[in-house]
């Protein structure tokens, strides 16, 4: 059954809620809205069915492997959902008197302590709403620190590898920096010598993902940090891949100055079809004074919030960064993340990192017989392949990915990182069992063999999905971004 849009259900005069009739008193006067808004309403059974049917057109982790490299699609425990819905967390207002939310403030403080312990960094800013927002927070702190040093006008250049996530250059630009890319060496890592050549008195910072987007640990990371610091710059680490090393390695031990942590990747707050996320940022001693408001302070056994820069300064906290969002950050995600952390404990977090790396290497080992790994050696939490094994067959990475849909799997990340031709980046995470990985690898090996044999069916995959390939070009050429009533077309 095809499911129409809610706007096509002839329901502009219905409602699916029962509410008492308003008395009819209005003091809105000239401000009152008149004219139809154009919002359909469906009865409750119709609403339920509409969204249940829509949901059935989705793929999700709960259905099978979701091996999107760089996205860390791991199991989302329902305990976390239950905890986040406790009235004491879900039904409290951000501007209630602080005396009435001591448990909430304690939770934020406790989560901060965990993040600090796991990263070995002295401070953490909790309010950023997602990874990219965390990057903004970190780069803002770097900019503020440079300003405090009087070098904000001279240090305008930010270095980032070509393999970086797009958010890195975008964030740098949004902070008013200019981005300069660092080349990779043959092993898929930052070329230290080339980096050193790029360093100079105009460099504000380097942005490096570690483990990097090729799924490799930057083995020169400490040398990189040293070189950058020596040149007077800061080391921003993109923490998207923290899941590979959580509990195993502390970024603070590697010379990092700032790193965001995607609670929705590493600590299992659900992706929800695109968010919400949460991106706290750990900061070094050098940057800690430039953390944004608000933050929680523990004092005399109680907790309070510092909500403005002037208040922060009054508390003798130095400069303080500006505000990045209304209120105090993603409380709902904090509860879920802490629930995850308490459940795992240090042993579980470490084991999860090891299993994530083990699973990725297992996939790498099993697939390399038919597919071409982009780089030699072991990987960290994700296995990167290129399209050399399909060379000359006419089958491309996108075809391979779409063929996976027909096998019942979500495709891996494709064409990223940009530095690898036809990249296929597989991140199984620790949530997959060996049995599941074996089935997954079998399916991929079979597709690889079909690709090498030039099976033309691959070019038109998927065949068994709610939709065949969609015309993205047409969508972008003349964008239709909303439903319009037929008579208005």
């Amino acid at each position, binding site marked *: 059954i095809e499911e129409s849009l809610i706007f096509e259900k002839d329901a502009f005069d219905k409602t699916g809620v029962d509410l008492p009739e308003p008395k009819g008193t209005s003091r809105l006067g000239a401000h009152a809205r008149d004219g139809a808004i154009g919002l359909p309403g469906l009865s409750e059974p119709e609403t339920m069915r509409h969204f249940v049917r829509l949901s059935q057109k989705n793929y999700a982790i709960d259905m099978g492997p979701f091996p999107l490299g760089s996205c860390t699609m791991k199991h989302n425990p329902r305990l976390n959902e239950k905890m986040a819905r406790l009235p004491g967390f879900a039904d409290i207002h951000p501007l209630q008197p602080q005396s009435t939310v001591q448990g909430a403030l304690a939770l934020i403080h406790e989560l901060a302590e965990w993040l600090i312990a796991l990263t070995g960094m002295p401070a953490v800013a909790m309010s950023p709403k997602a990874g990219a927002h965390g990057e903004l927070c970190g780069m803002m702190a770097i900019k503020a620190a440079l300003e405090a040093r009087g070098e904000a006008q001279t240090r305008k250049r930010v270095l980032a590898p070509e393999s970086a996530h797009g958010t890195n250059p975008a964030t740098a630009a949004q902070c008013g920096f200019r981005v300069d890319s660092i080349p990779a060496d043959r092993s898929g890592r930052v070329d230290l010598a080339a980096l050193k050549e790029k360093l100079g008195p105009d460099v504000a910072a380097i942005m490096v993902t570690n483990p990097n987007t090729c799924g490799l640990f930057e083995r020169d990371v400490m040398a990189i940090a040293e070189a950058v610091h020596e040149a007077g710059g800061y080391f921003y680490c993109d923490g998207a891949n923290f899941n590979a090393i959580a509990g195993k390695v502390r970024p603070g031990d590697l010379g990092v100055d700032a790193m965001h942590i995607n609670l929705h990747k590493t600590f299992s707050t659900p992706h929800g079809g695109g968010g919400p996320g949460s991106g706290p940022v750990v900061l070094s001693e050098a940057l800690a004074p430039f953390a944004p408001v608000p933050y929680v302070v523990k004092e005399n056994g109680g907790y309070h919030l510092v909500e403005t820069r002037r208040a922060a300064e009054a508390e003798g906290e130095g400069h303080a960064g500006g505000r990045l969002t209304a209120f105090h950050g993603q409380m709902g995600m904090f509860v879920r993340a802490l629930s995850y952390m308490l459940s795992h404990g240090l042993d579980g977090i*470490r084991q999860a990192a090891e299993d994530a790396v083990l699973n990725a290497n297992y996939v790498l080992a*099993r697939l390399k017989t038919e597919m071409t790994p982009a780089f030699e050696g072991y990987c960290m939490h994700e296995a990167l392949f290129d399209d050399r094994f399909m060379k000359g067959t006419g089958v491309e990475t996108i075809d391979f990915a779409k063929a996976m849909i027909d096998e019942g799997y979500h495709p891996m990340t494709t064409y990223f990182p940009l530095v690898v031709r036809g990249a296929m980046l597989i991140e199984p995470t620790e949530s997959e069992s060996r049995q599941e990985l074996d089935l997954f690898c079998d399916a991929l090996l079979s597709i690889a063999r079909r690709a090498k044999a030039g099976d033309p069916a691959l070019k038109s995959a998927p065949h068994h999905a709610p939709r065949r390939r969609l015309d993205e070009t047409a969508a972008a050429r003349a964008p239709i971004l909303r439903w319009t009533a037929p008579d208005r077309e």
Partner: protein
Amino acid sequence: MRYLPLTAADRRAMMDVIGVREVDDLFRDVPAAALNPKIDLPLHKSELEVERILSAMAAKNRAAGAGPFFVGCGAYRHHVPATVDHIIQRSEFLTAYTPYQPEIAQGTLQYLFEFQTQVAALTGMEVANASMYDGSTACAEAVLMAGRVTKRDRVVLSGGLHPHYAAVARTNLDLVGAKVAAVPLDPGGTENLAALIDANTSCVVVQNPDVFGNLRDLSPLAAACREKGALLIAVVTEAVSLGAVRSPGEMGADIVAGEGQSIGNALNFGGPYVGLFATRQKYVRQMPGRLCGQTVDADGKRGFVLTLSTREQHIRRDKATSNICTNSGLCALAFTVHMTLLGEKGLRRVAMLSHEAACKTADALAKVPGVKIETETFFNEFTIRLPTNASEVVNALAAKGVLAGVPGGRLWPHDPSTHDLLVVAATEMTTDQDIAAVARALEEVL
């Protein structure tokens, strides 16, 4: 560990396939000194233990539902039908990723398309995106977008704009070196913003209802903006108000940045929320954030995809319209489901019931000796002036189990002129008993 499927035997067998002797062989690129540090954290806990720990923390907070509640200022307690939570908890929605593979993400994509249409209709605008982090960051993105559209770098922020929103906008403007015109606080809602627009002004940002609760007619300001080539950015922090009051689109706004929390989403101590972002068709390629568009598949069937991604960071990198990547998908779904249940009919009813409850509350508080109502025309929120420090009054009332509103000192701690102000909000959840209780308690405290 209950979340980890591998057994010791599995790990052993897998290491054999990989060809390593122990798992740390896979971590050999990590500097040896940094591997496996001693970390002072507890070991894993059973589900029961975790529940007990977190429930104990939760019990130390006073839930809004535990008594009379009148707190607003950008987050509102409306009733959310149980259906909403059921749907957003469905595995297929909860545990899916951003819909990058549209063939198996039509569920997410179609609701985003419905969300965009609902937001556009509600705000009276032509197009809306697939959501932002929240209202405050949507507002900041709107200001940055106005800079891109107009190529100007001076911004006028209304004195009635929520101070957190203003602070977030300033933070983002500072980073790119843009200027902000200083407008004094405006509890009366009568400031003359048109006069502040100059040739270098990219936009004027004004909130309606404003943070004090005042309803404003934006039309004259829209005309002034149009004349001087600046954009009018309307901020709406109470989405339900759009069921009762004129939409920003009707009044001529160029961009609407809004907070969608109050439809479908809980208070959540401030997050996650869902930012609404709508504008005119002609600015669509300058918009930040994700957009879902309609297209067809290889069989000619209608389908939906993420589109115009050439604006976005993963394609455009440092030339992107924003660095935003994550949106607020699940909260947008909650918004869409609740809005679908409400429909226009239900939304208008929630809005008018909230308005009526606020009117009743104002009438009741006006009778309390020493209280002065500051807001003349309002939707579901208004400001009163007290004869004493409002923060102290709020704390005294909290001790009596009444959460009476947001004191000026919480929003503007450094502006003593606001410290006798109290912003009071009501919704359809507010009962006559609640109103009587707050009035009585306030009288006792004053």
